[in-house]
């Protein structure tokens, strides 16, 4: 590595550690003084920390471009050195990692700012303002971990960040660990958090195994060395590595079969959903595959599997999204589906397309989630104003502090996230409506929004290499546009289906401004990599790292088809949901025509239930069985108490006519009590106090000894 560092001027590389330290610093400050700070102060510190990371990322990016994309490796410290194993805390600054840094810290900072406003109200609705600081601590921790992930120079350091973000998502999903999504006391949220962590761990298991094979087959964890060794290694190993890595990807990027945690993850506060479960963390898998491009490109068969996984996930999730009522759930499944797109892309080797979609998706999905959050807040306000007859939510904040949890404060439970309670918000929350609209169009892939360009590139690649993938993705795209349309109509159009919707209030600037920035990005994000000669900026940028990338020209056929599909889907959704809006309590109009199919979509195709039946419950039963029956009753009680201790005591009692006295250790000695009793009759004879039988034993001894001596 010294070589490299000598080769190129390191520029701002020395700042690299601050990618991690800045957020950690913010974290520490808030951790120590959070209780004394005002909310604004806390938010400011956290946002500054994240902002600093963003600035550093920009500087690093500039350095990279100054070096014509030469990778810079900046060693902070040594980590583990044993025998041939040598691991260091080394940052890798190249076009790919800086891209991720920019996305993460950029979107991250925006969401920090947004969260100041959002959490201010959220903690009051949940009656625990004290928790405000904690949220930003976790958020900063996440930024730090994510930075480690994207800036690591070896698979292991990547893994550190990988698990770190897992932890953060655990903490943030379980942020309201004592409640459920509706604010009632329950285990729901903590269960969701646990589920997320464990599912991720399953993925990490794959990652670990991949790492082990990598080390023993390729002899290192450091990217360059691995890739170099891979050229000569036997493909068998590479296939194993890449596929095990795929398990990790499936865990982190919510692909089949490990996607199940993501929808539940919506239990976390909305900014979390936006940042972690839409924009950044979940894309780590895509980043991993892109990073390992040189491995995947060696083994087409593995690539194919990856691509298929992505495509199938994309379609599958999209179908489920159609059946959801919770505004965030819809977005969650949409995220899974979009991640499917990306995975499919990188699987096909269209790494640039994948990264491109990753970026644009980060913009518009963050936008959507945050807007959804704004909608929910609006509903909440409406609901509460209703309950309290005034719309000063600060006063209300204290007001509801006396009451117990939010749910039980008014008779029936009100779900502010349920689209069936919404409707007509176009009028009550205009800003949010427009922002949401932009996000929707971007996601649906309507020209000229960002989503159009990135998705189109993926489809184009697919159409060239993997027809099946292309087919699946196109259908997925159709569904995407459909469920987004459905959402728009249900949420913003038609009449108010609840009082809350009627009284919903538009959010304050601190919330809407970041949204506008994101909206702008969602509109213009396509410019990053326009499919025209000389406009492949992202392509060229990443080329430094990914070496050969194919930059395709726009194919009007593919683009046209996808656009038509999208428009058709939206039209269809209008036909179903927009033309005659849903009325309160009316079941989804698709229920009738689709029947079983819709119930399936509604219930996520019963995958969770399936997992419970096949894996989780059996494991619970098994461990119960092992613990109670095998280990305790059989091994501990029966074997050790009865057999060992019992025999022990029993043997001693044969020579005797009495039980061992039941003293301190009687517990240890009450082994074969009955057998003892039964035998003691015969045993009574031996030490019986009769001189004559004592003499008998002496004589017996004599006779035996003489017999032995004579006969031997």
């Amino acid at each position, binding site marked *: 590595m010294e070589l490299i560092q000598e080769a190129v001027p390191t520029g701002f590389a020395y700042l690299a550690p601050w990618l991690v330290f800045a957020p950690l610093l913010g974290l520490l400050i808030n951790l120590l003084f959070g209780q004394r700070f005002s909310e604004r102060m806390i938010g400011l510190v956290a946002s500054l920390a994240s902002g600093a990371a963003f600035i550093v990322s920009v500087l690093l990016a500039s350095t990279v471009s100054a070096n014509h994309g030469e990778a810079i490796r900046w060693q902070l410290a040594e980590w583990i050195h044993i025998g041939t194993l040598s691991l260091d805390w080394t940052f890798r600054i190249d076009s790919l990692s800086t891209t991720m840094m920019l996305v993460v810290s950029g979107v991250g900072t925006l969401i920090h700012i947004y969260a100041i406003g959002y959490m201010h109200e959220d903690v009051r609705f949940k009656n625990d303002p004290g928790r405000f600081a904690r949220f930003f601590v976790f958020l900063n921790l996440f930024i730090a971990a994510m930075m480690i992930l994207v800036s690591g120079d070896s698979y292991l350091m990547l893994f550190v960040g990988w698990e770190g973000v897992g932890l953060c998502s655990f903490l943030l999903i379980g942020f309201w660990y004592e409640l459920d999504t509706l604010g009632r006391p329950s285990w729901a949220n903590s269960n969701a958090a646990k589920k997320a962590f464990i599912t991720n761990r399953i993925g990490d298991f794959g990652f670990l195994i991949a790492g082990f094979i990598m080390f023993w087959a390729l002899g290192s964890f450091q990217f360059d060395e691995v890739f170099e060794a891979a050229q000569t290694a036997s493909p068998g190993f590479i296939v194993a590595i890449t596929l095990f890595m795929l398990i990790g990807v499936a865990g982190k990027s919510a692909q089949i079969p490990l996607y199940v945690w993501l929808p539940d993850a919506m239990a976390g506060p909305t900014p979390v959903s936006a940042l972690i479960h839409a924009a950044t963390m979940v894309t780590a898998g895509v980043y991993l595959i892109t990073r390992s491009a040189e491995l995947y490109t060696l083994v087409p068969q593995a690539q194919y599997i990856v691509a298929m996984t992505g495509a199938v996930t994309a379609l599958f999730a999209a179908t489920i999204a159609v059946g959801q009522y919770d505004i965030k759930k819809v977005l969650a499944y949409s995220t899974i589906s979009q991640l499917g797109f990306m995975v499919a892309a990188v699987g096909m080797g269209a790494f640039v397309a994948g990264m491109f979609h990753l970026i644009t998706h980060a913009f518009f999905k963050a936008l959507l989630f945050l807007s959804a959050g704004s909608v929910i807040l609006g509903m909440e306000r409406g609901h509460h104003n209703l309950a309290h007859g005034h719309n000063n939510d600060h006063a209300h904040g204290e007001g509801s502090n006396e009451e117990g949890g939010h749910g039980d404060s008014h008779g029936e439970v009100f779900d502010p996230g349920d689209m069936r309670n919404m409707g007509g918000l176009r009028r009550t929350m205009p800003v949010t409506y427009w922002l949401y609209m932009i996000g929707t169009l971007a996601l649906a892939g309507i020209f000229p929004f960002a989503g159009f360009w990135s998705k189109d590139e993926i489809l184009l690649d697919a159409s060239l290499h993997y027809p099946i993938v292309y087919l699946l993705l196109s259908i997925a795209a159709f569904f995407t546009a459909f469920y987004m349309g459905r959402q728009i109509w249900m949420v913003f159009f038609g009449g108010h289906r609840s009082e809350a919707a009627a009284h919903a209030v538009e959010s304050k600037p601190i919330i809407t401004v970041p949204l506008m920035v994101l909206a702008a990005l969602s509109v213009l994000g396509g410019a990053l990599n326009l499919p025209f000669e000389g406009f492949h900026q992202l392509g060229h940028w990443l080329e430094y790292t990914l070496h050969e990338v194919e930059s395709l020209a726009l194919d009007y056929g593919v683009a046209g088809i996808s656009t038509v599909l999208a428009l058709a889907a939206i039209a269809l959704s209008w036909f179903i949901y927009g033309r005659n809006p849903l009325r309160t309590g009316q079941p989804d109009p698709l229920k009738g025509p689709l029947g079983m199919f819709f119930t399936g979509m509604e219930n996520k195709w019963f995958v969770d239930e399936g997992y419970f039946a096949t894996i989780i419950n059996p494991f619970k039963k098994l461990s119960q069985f092992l613990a109670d029956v095998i280990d305790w009753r059989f091994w501990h009680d029966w074997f050790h108490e009865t057999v060992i201790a019992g025999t022990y005591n029993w043997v001693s009692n044969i020579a*005797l006519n*009495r039980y061992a006295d039941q003293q301190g250790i009687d517990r240890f000695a009450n082994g074969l009590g009955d057998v003892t009793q039964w035998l003691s009759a015969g045993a009574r004879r031996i*030490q*019986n*106090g*009769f*001189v*004559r039988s004592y*003499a008998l034993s002496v*004589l017996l001894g004599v006779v035996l000894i003489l017999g032995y001596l004579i006969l031997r």
Partner: protein
Amino acid sequence: MVEINYYIILSAVLFTIGALGVLVRRNALIIFMSIELMLNSANLAMVAFGSVLESFSGQIFVFFVIAVAAAEVAVGLALIVEIFKSKRSIDVDQMNSMKG
């Protein structure tokens, strides 16, 4: 002429009878007598050997054994009398207040 082995066998028989006496009788005194019988049989063997080997030590040993027997009798009878005083019986089967 008599084979010495005859004497030995005779002594062995007497010894065994003595031992049996200890084993089967309950009267402490008779048990004690049986023990004396055992000693006697030993003496018989001793003297027999001695006369073959034509050395005195056999006889002398017997002499000591007799002396010791006398000593034992003194103590033994004292014990038995003492027991009888307190137990009003010399049945050894009644002397099992301790067991196990």
